[in-house]
């Protein structure tokens, strides 16, 4: 293999290895040893908060949903099959989680609809339900999706200023990220070693390497 091609390949491998190492380390630090990814948002618009299945059921591990009201009022958190939840939400005022940002840990909300949400407290479609003052929490297991989570006040009053947190946790994620970082580091180290060993021996035209003089006596 020509030396120039080998050096180009070496650089490519070095960049790939370095990128893998950075990516792995960055994920490992972001997730922590528990492998926990946490995302939060605080609603500004009045109405229920909704998490659709494209986010709720997007990862194959349980998701913990926590809804917290600063004023200590009632919070009701429910989960139902998406078709049923959609029928109840209809066109009432809701804020739907529309984006998840990792590792920023933030969620995007999209407001839609008008009018109060009715029938949510009497319906029999909710597979999971939690209600408490100030904070309510649920863990949604996967396997029954698509499902939708809805946060309301539970008493018909408009909900505003609720902070919702979605948490996914899998300790394997941390070790996966760590493995990626280690593999990337090893690859980068080998590439760097190869580049070092095959570095050109001659200097550049601007800085010619001094020639060794022959010592004569």
């Amino acid at each position: 293999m020509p030396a120039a091609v080998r050096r180009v390949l070496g650089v490519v491998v070095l960049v790939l290895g370095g990128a893998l190492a950075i990516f792995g380390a960055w994920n490992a630090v972001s997730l922590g040893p528990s492998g926990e990814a946490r995302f939060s948002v605080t609603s500004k618009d009045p109405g229920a908060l909704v998490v659709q299945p494209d986010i709720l059921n997007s990862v194959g591990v349980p998701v913990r949903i926590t809804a917290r009201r600063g004023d200590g009022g009632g919070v009701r958190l429910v989960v139902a099959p998406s078709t049923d939840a959609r029928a109840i939400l209809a066109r009432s005022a809701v804020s739907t989680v529309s984006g998840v940002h990792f590792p920023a840990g933030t969620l995007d909300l999209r407001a839609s609809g008008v009018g109060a949400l009715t029938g949510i407290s009497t319906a029999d479609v909710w597979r999971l339900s939690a209600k408490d003052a100030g904070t309510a929490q649920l863990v949604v297991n996967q396997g029954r999706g698509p499902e939708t989570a809805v946060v309301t006040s539970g008493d018909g009053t408009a909900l505003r200023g609720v902070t919702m947190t979605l948490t996914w946790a899998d300790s394997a994620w941390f070790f996966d990220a760590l493995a990626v970082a280690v593999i990337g580091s090893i690859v980068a180290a080998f590439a760097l070693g190869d580049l070092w060993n095959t570095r050109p021996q001659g200097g550049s035209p601007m800085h010619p390497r001094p020639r060794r003089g022959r010592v004569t006596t």
Partner: protein
Amino acid sequence: MTRRFRVILLSIVTAMSVTGCGAAHAVLGIHGQPRANPSSVPLTLDQAKNILTRDFTAAQQGETTAGAAARAALRTAYTGEALRAANARVKLASVQPTGTVSPLLAPQQPRLLAVPRGFGFPRVILAQTVASEGPLPILYLLTSPDAATPYRISASATMLLATSLKPFDPLAKGSQLVIDGEGLVVAPAALLKAYAAGMAFPAKAVTNPPFTADVFSAQVRAKAASVAKGVAAQARFSQVHQVVPGSVYAVRQASGDAIVFGVIERTDSFAVKSGQAVNTAANKEFVLLTGRKRVTKSATITRLEFVVFAVPRSTGQATLVAASDPVVAGSGS
């Protein structure tokens, strides 16, 4: 750094930026949302049991207490014709003979027979209880017409002697609601209509009935004939049976047969003959419902006939397996 090297490096960085999100998704195992299974059960076993407990507890509360809270409890437990029957039962409780009061007055654990399959509406739950005061089980139909409306008891009937039910699909699989009678020897609506017509008085012949003869309709017809004979000197008696619209539900069983619930409204009409006055004081139900102890022109008594049929899939006739006919209304002048 040569130009060629810079181009390669830039390409790599660009490619890694573009695929960065994909790599993160791969590490976290992020995937698209799962697709809904149209034949899955829309509620868990615990949900179904909680619904039964809630409705039966409310029914018991509604029938053992009085006032606005009791009425609200009845509305929580019952809907439609079953609510009409429960309200009448409460009103007539003081004059009902022992044994005809609601079996729900005795606390008991209902047995879940069938839960819905699929995400369409209406959805139904079938349950069964055994009355503490009698040996015959009672079948219950709970319905939910839409996502926002909870399940409530919409029909109940006592099983007839020597009848039984074939098993339904496992609760984890759910039971299919039969629409328009597809895959059955007779459409549920047509069956109920024919059965109602067959019980009319004066009697009307029903040719090729899709149901077998049963003790309930025989008793209804015999009693109608007896009443007509008893009041013949003072009044003309007639009896009409009309299927209540929207009351017929059919649920598929594991064998492919179906259980059909239906409600028929029976109206007993008395046209008092000219110059006659009928003393109704002995009929305490009628007096409670109408406030009249004497009628000179006409009187009606309305009953709801909650009937349950076992309908075969391909051959044979439907068989009545449960029936109840509580009084719900009366009028007189």
